[in-house]
Every structure is written in structure tokens, then in C-alpha cells.
């Protein structure tokens, strides 16, 4: 892969922005809420700005890895701090930037233990940035863990609805996933014969078939837990429901993508033969996840559970696209990661706003809510339309690409999944109708609608969805520049 060394450490700065913000916050007084928020927002804004910069300035004609930085870290074990951007991770870095920025804005009204909250959130987002930009397996895993662990405390302290159970379940599931990833990574490292964790170099090694099969399945299930691959998804709806709004946004919006990204970047990239061997299983589990998510979602009465299960099914679409191993499929998958990230962030952000006011997320209690808070409800309805795959939003193109190639490669599973998506649209409409267009609940009649400032994060998310829905090639050309060589290397 061609490398273009960075003239300025953009990626390091993107990574350090939250770290610096976190350090400053640690030295601020607990009572200085406003200052803490401002510091967090500035850190997030810097990270967002840099991620936009790399996204816009990535040269698709040149291709390969750009903005590369590489420093030796632990010499004797061949560990490098090696970061770079290509067409696959550029959209995901942008997604992370958007979600953390809007996430901080969404939590602007938080009053309880503000300092710790933003400190943990910035720690989490550091991990996410680190995973997306690392090209070294060890560092990749290091950041992966950093991203996963703060969730426990975030859910435990600021969560709701069975939070103790949910926090522990989520953490143990994800750490069990890590327990599979470590042997997988180390197996590749140990059998490569070259003393390095550098993924680009490891890609050049042709691993023995048994190594590829073993490592791939370990990595697939290990990362798959985080990507909510059926049947390892059960932590996810429970966790989303319990988590505070911005954490749900980050978690469903970004963290679950880490899992899918890990499957793509580590497992498929390093073990192409292993991927061919297990692709059938991947497609099967993904298809089951799609169908399952839709049907279980139909039965939910809590808005957050509805979103939680729709996430399972949407992440199934990502998995299905990856399993096809075709250019279109992976293209669609990566685009879907981005689109779903923005969409769920919008979903959770909208629900969080309503929940903070009414302290309920029950569909039947809210009934007719659009008459009380038309704007706040509008955001949710837009998110639901994105979820249903309505043209004009980014997710439409992503799902289209995935299903075209899925039906070609796995006709039965593809068609089944496609059929359930149609049902999914139905279910989105049902939720919208029941929650927002029934008779309004008199209990909530006195609530004011969302103010322009508090609505800002949602407006940003909607704008992103529409922008990439109308101009999908802004994204697709970029992704394609990386996916074409990737698929040729499979």
C-alpha cells in the first residue's frame, strides 16, 4: 500500500485533543460546570475540525494511506505508533468527530457529577479515534480496550432502567470479546515470522490456512460481540436503554462500528483465506440478525428498545455487506456504518431530549407528542425515516448497495433480509404514528418545545444525513478508492 507521510501531525492532534481536554478537566473544580462543558466542547470541536480536514483533503486520485505518522513504540516487540487515513477509515473518523461534538452538546443540561462525566466521555472518544486511525495491531487493540471500559462507569452512574445489570452485562460481554481478540492477534503475530505488529507488513505475509481459519474466527467473534452480531447481541439493546443519552449516541453510533471495522481491518485484511472459509457463516448470522432485529423490535414498547433492536438489524446489514466480499458490498457496508452512526445518534439524541422532559419513553404514554413538541418530535421522525431507508437520506444508498450485492452472492439470505427491511419500514411508521400522532397526553401539555441551541446537535446530524443522501458520491468515491484495492487483495 502506498504511504504518504503527513507534513503536519494531524492525526496525533486529533487523538490528543480529547486527551488534553480530559487532562484540563481533571484539574478543574467540580462546581465549574460551564467551564467543564466549554473545555469538552472545544476538545470535541478541534477533533471534529481535524476529522473534517482529513476527510476533505484525502486525495482519492493518489489513494493509499495518507497523513501517515509512524514512530517506534516498543522496539523489542515490534510495536509502532502507526496511524494513517484511507478511504475506509476517513468516513469513520468524520463520524466520530460529528457524534462526539453533537454528543457534548446533547449533554449540555447535565447537572450530576459533570466533571467525571465529561472526563470519561473524552477518554472513551480517545479510544475510538485511536482504533480508527491505527495501522498497528497492538495499538489498535490498546485503543479498542480504552474505548470499551469507560462505558461501565458511564452507564453505572448516569444511566437509567436496570443500569447496574446492563453495565455489568455489557462490560463482561465486550471483555469476553477482547478475550477472543487477544489470542487471535497474537496468533497472527507469532506465526508471521516477522517481529512486528504493523498490519500493512503483516498483510504481505501469507499465513498458513489453519492459522487464517483459527485467527479469523477468533477475531470475527471477538469483534463481532461489539458489532452486535447475532447471537452475541443481547448486551446491546439492554446497554443502549440503560446508557445516558450521549453515551447511547456514542455507543450505538460509533462504538459498534469499531467491531465491524475490526472485522474488516484486522480479520478480513490479514486472513483473506480465513474469510473465504467463514464467509457463509458470516452471511448467515448477519441475515438472521437483520430479520431478528426487525421482528423483536416490532414488539417493543420502550422507544429506546425500539432503537436498540433496529441497531441490531442495521448492524446486520453492515455484516451482510462485508460477508459478500464484493466491491459494492463492502462499499455499502462502510457507508452504512457511517449512515447508521449518524442516524442512531439522531435517534438517541431525540429520544434523550424527550425523556429528560417527560421521564418516560413508553410509546403509549407519549401518544400524540408532535402536537406538544413539534420540532423535537420532528427529529425523531426524520431519524425513523432514515431508518426505514427512505431515499434522500444517506442510509438509502448504503442499504441499496449492500442488498444489490447480497442478493447476487447469497440469494436466499439476501432476499429474506430485504423482505424484513420492508417490514422494518412498516414498523418504523407504526412507532411514529403511535408515539407522535395519537391524542396528546394531557400530562405533558405544558412542556415547551426544543430551543434552537439545544436543537443544534440534532440539526447538525440531520444536515449530515441529507448532505450525504443527496450527494452520496462525496462519500462513495472516497470509500471506493480504498475498497477496490482491498477487494483485489482478498
Amino acid at each position: 500500500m502506498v504511504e504518504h507521510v503527513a507534513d503536519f501531525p494531524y492525526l496525533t492532534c486529533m487523538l490528543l485533543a480529547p486527551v488534553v481536554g480530559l487532562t484540563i478537566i481533571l484539574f478543574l473544580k467540580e462546581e465549574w460546570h460551564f467551564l467543564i462543558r466549554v473545555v469538552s466542547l472545544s476538545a470535541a470541536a478541534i477533533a471534529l475540525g481535524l476529522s473534517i480536514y482529513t476527510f476533505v483533503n484525502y486525495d482519492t486520485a493518489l489513494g493509499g494511506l495518507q497523513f501517515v505518522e509512524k514512530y517506534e513504540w516498543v522496539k523489542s516487540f515490534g510495536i509502532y505508533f502507526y496511524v494513517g487515513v484511507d478511504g475506509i477509515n476517513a468516513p469513520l473518523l468524520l463520524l466520530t468527530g460529528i457524534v462526539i461534538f453533537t454528543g457534548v452538546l446533547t449533554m449540555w443540561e447535565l447537572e450530576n457529577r459533570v466533571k467525571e462525566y465529561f472526563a470519561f466521555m473524552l477518554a472513551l472518544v480517545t479510544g475510538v479515534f485511536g482504533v480508527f486511525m491505527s495501522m498497528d495491531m497492538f495499538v489498535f487493540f490498546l485503543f479498542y480496550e480504552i474505548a470499551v471500559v469507560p462505558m461501565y462507569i458511564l452507564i453505572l452512574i448516569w444511566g437509567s432502567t436496570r443500569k447496574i445489570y446492563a453495565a455489568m452485562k455489557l462490560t463482561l460481554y465486550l471483555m469476553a470479546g477482547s478475550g477472543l481478540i487477544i489470542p487471535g492477534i497474537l496468533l497472527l503475530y507469532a506465526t508471521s515470522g516477522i517481529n512486528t505488529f504493523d498490519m500493512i507488513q503483516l498483510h504481505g505475509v501469507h499465513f498458513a490456512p489453519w492459522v487464517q481459519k483459527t485467527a479469523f474466527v477468533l477475531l470475527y467473534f471477538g469483534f463481532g460481540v461489539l458489532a452486535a452480531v447475532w447471537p452475541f447481541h443481547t448486551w446491546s439493546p439492554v446497554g443502549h436503554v440503560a446508557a445516558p443519552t450521549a453515551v447511547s449516541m456514542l455507543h450505538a453510533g460509533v462504538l459498534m462500528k469499531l467491531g465491524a471495522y475490526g472485522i474488516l481491518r484486522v480479520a478480513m485484511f490479514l486472513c483473506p483465506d480465513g474469510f473465504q472459509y467463514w464467509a457463509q457463516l458470516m452471511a448467515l448470522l448477519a441475515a438472521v440478525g437483520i430479520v431478528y432485529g426487525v421482528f423483536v423490535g416490532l414488539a417493543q414498547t420502550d422507544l429506546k428498545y425500539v432503537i436498540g433492536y433496529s441497531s441490531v438489524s442495521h448492524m446486520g446489514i453492515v455484516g451482510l455487506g462485508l460477508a459478500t466480499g464484493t466491491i459494492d458490498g463492502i462499499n455499502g457496508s462502510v457507508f452504512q456504518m457511517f449512515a447508521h452512526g449518524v442516524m442512531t445518534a439522531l435517534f438517541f439524541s431525540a429520544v434523550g431530549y424527550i425523556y429528560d422532559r417527560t421521564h418516560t419513553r413508553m410509546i403509549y404514554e407519549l401518544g400524540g407528542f408532535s402536537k406538544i413538541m413539534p420540532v423535537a418530535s420532528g427529529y425523531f421522525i426524520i431519524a425513523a425515516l432514515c431508518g426505514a431507508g427512505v431515499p434522500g437520506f444517506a442510509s438509502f444508498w448504503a442499504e441499496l448497495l449492500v442488498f444489490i450485492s447480497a442478493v447476487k452472492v447469497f440469494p436466499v439470505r439476501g432476499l429474506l433480509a430485504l423482505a424484513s427491511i420492508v417490514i422494518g419500514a412498516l414498523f418504523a411508521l407504526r412507532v411514529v404514528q403511535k408515539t407522535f400522532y395519537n391524542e396528546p397526553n394531557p400530562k405533558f401539555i405544558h412542556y415547551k418545545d426544543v430551543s434552537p441551541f439545544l436543537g443544534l446537535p440534532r440539526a447538525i446530524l440531520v444536515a449530515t444525513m441529507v448532505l450525504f443522501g443527496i450527494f452520496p458520491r462525496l462519500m462513495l468515491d472516497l470509500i471506493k478508492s480504498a475498497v477496490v484495492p482491498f477487494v483485489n487483495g482478498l
Partner: protein
Amino acid sequence: MKVLLFGPELYFLGMALVLFILSLRRQVNIRIDHQVALGFAAGGVVVASACLFQQGELFFAAYRVDLFSQIFKVALALGLFLVLMISHNLAHIDDRYHAEFYLFLTTCTLGLMMLVSAVELLTIYVSLELSSYSLYILVPLRRGDDMDIEAGVKYLFIGAVSSCFMLFGLSYIFGATHSTYVNEVMAKMPELVQSPIGIMGLLLTLAGFFFKLSVFPFHFWAPDVYQGAANQVTTFIATVSKAAAVAVLLRLVALGEVYGFGFTQALWILSIVSMTLGNLVAIVQKDFKRMLAYSSIAHAGYVLMGILTLSEAGYTAAIYYAVAYLIMNFTCFMVISEVANDGRNLQIVELAGLYHRNPLLGLALMLGLFALAGVPPSIGFTGKLLVFTSAMKEGYFWLVLVGAVNGTISLYYYLKVVYAAYFLEGKELPAVHIGLSTRALSYALILIIIGFGVFPDRVVELARVAVKGVLL
């Protein structure tokens, strides 16, 4: 300058003498006792550091001074200093015995220092006993209930039994090789390990160190002693004496190039059983120290994983892990002795609300526990990954898999403590006030846990150079 070769040991011998004289006074002044001990211990760190790059042999080559031993001596001196730092409040030890308390900690450190340099079997044995006897006295020194007596007796019995095992093993080895010098013994090992007497002799000899490290099946003392001994004594046992045991184990194992399948197989089993047993039993514990005792059994398994690879990378990882373990474990014990300032045993629920009772200690505790659980970016994560990497390189796939699964299990009970400290409110519990020294210590530990976790290269390189010296 032959004296410098023996410098740290002489210094600590002198320190022991001074403390001995202090213990003879009629009028007790515990402040002076503590300040003298602390001052001398600080000097000890300086002396040990000054002798870091000494090289040579003493006492008819029974005693070898090299980078490996000197690094561990610095670590031991530092460990003693840290333990004395948190000993400013020995509420549970009779005022009359404070000087003795410091005295025996010093003699124990002295024994451990001799242990890491000894390369002759009898010298090893005598040093080991010097450190053990000091601890036999320290454990029941606590005032109050009978738990300390039980702990003391248990420690003595199991220690004596493992000493017997060790002597028995030594007699086998001596009988088969006609030498007590480790390098001569090891030269004859390759043919010896083919016979049962060789394997048995070696494993029984290692029993003495397995006892110190609380590796299965020599772990029975750990929970009771951890719980029964004074908090500071437990801290010493859990950190300093473990690090020394790792050093000797490494030296003994490293000198034999080829041990054969049977030997590594035995260590493989001990490692897996220790990890799994320690972690599973730790889950149900309510007493914080008891929980840490079981977790120490599990950590001994991780260290063993690095050692049994019999490779340079494995030893390097094991040293790194041992030092990391010393630091993260110490962090937890510091919090224990500060929160339980009347010297009681700390239940996990008593940590409730630590985040507002003392935010700094809460943060330190959380980082220490995360490091123990192997969560990045911490020294424990890097250590664990290095150990796993070296084991995988030698082809121990299943061992790594079991280790990784164990990491998940351990996270569960560490998180329970974090849960108590950060989630339970603990409104009725008093705030915890800490002095300036503890405050500085907390900041230093936090920095070390994160700093060396993120930038491990220097430590790893140092450990590697030290290991190279031992492998020769």
C-alpha cells in the same frame, strides 16, 4: 571497590542495627521510630540506585552482582520505602513494637536482597529463610482478635512445609550433581531432567518460591495471611516479597537452557490452575484484602506464563509484569491503609462513595484496579500483553486463550470494587483525609501506572539487558 558490590546489603544491615538499638529504649516515641525508619529507607533507595551498575562476584562465587540483581535490589529498596511511607499510622500494632516492626521489615528486605544475588543453593536457602523468619514474626504482630494468631500459625506451617520440600529437592539435586553452585548444577541438568530425580528435585526446589509467590498448590496461606496480618505487613508480603520470588525463580529457570517437555508441562499446569482458581474464588470475596489475596494467586499464574516460555522475551515480560504488579498492587494497598486508618480489615462495601470522600484516592484505586484487570492504558495491560505475546511466540496457544478468558473473569470482581467506590453513595461514611506525603504518593503512582503503560519501552529495554546478563 569490592565494598560497593555488597553496598545495599551492608547499608540495610546497618539500618537493621540502628533500628535494633531503637527497639531497646524504655521510653517509646513512635514518631521518631517512624521518621528514622523512613529516612533510612529513603537512603536505602539512593544507595541501591548508586550501586545499579556494579558487576562482580563475591564469597567464592556464591554471590553474583549483575544488572539483573541490582535492578531488583532497587525495586526492593523502593518497595520498602513505599511500605514505610504508608506506615505513619500503625494503629493496630502496639506502640512498644513499632521499632521491631520496622526492624523486621528491614531484615526481611535484607534477606530478599541477598536472595536475588545468590547463585549457590545453600546461600539461596539461607537468604530465603532470613526473609521468611522476619515475616513469621511480623504477621502475628497485630493487636486484637485471634485472626492474627491463626494467620501467623498458618503462615509458619505452610512456610515450614515448603521449606522442607525445598530442602528435600535440594538434597536430590546435590546428590545427583555433587555441587551446590547453580551454574554447575544447571550444566548437568540436560541429562538429569530426563530422569525422575532431576524433575522432582527441580520442582521441589522451586516449591520454596512457589510458596512466596502463592502459586497453586502452595497458596493456602495467602487469603488468611492477607486478611489476618496488619495492612502494612500484607502490603509488604504482597508486593516486595513477591517481586524477589520472581527474580529467583527467573534466575534458576534461566540458567538451564534445556529443561525438556516435562518441566514446562508442569509449570504450564501450575500456571493455568493458579490463574483459574485464583480468579474464580476471588469473585465471592467480601473482604478487600482477601479478594486481593486470591487475585495475587491469579497474577502468580500470569508471571509463571512468562517464565515457562524459557525465552528471552518471556523473561523480559515476566520482569516487567512483576514490577508492574508491585506498583499496581501497592496502589490498592495504599488506599486500604488510608481508608482503614484504624487498622481494621476493609470490607469492599466500606469503600462506598470514595469518589466524594476522597476523589484522589478514588481515582488511584480505580486505576490500580483497572491495571490489575489489564485494562489500558495502564502498566498492567502492557505487562499482560507482553506476557501473552511471548507465550504465543513459543506456541502456547491454549495457555494464552485461558489467560485471556481469565482476564475477563477477573474484570468482574475488580469492577465490583470500582462499583462500590464510584456508585454506592456511602453518605454516612466519613470523609478520608490524607497527608501531603500520601497525596504526592498517589499522584506519583497514577503517573507511573499510566506513564509506563503508555511508554513501556525504557523499562522493557532495561529488563531485556538484565535478562541477557542472566542468560549467559
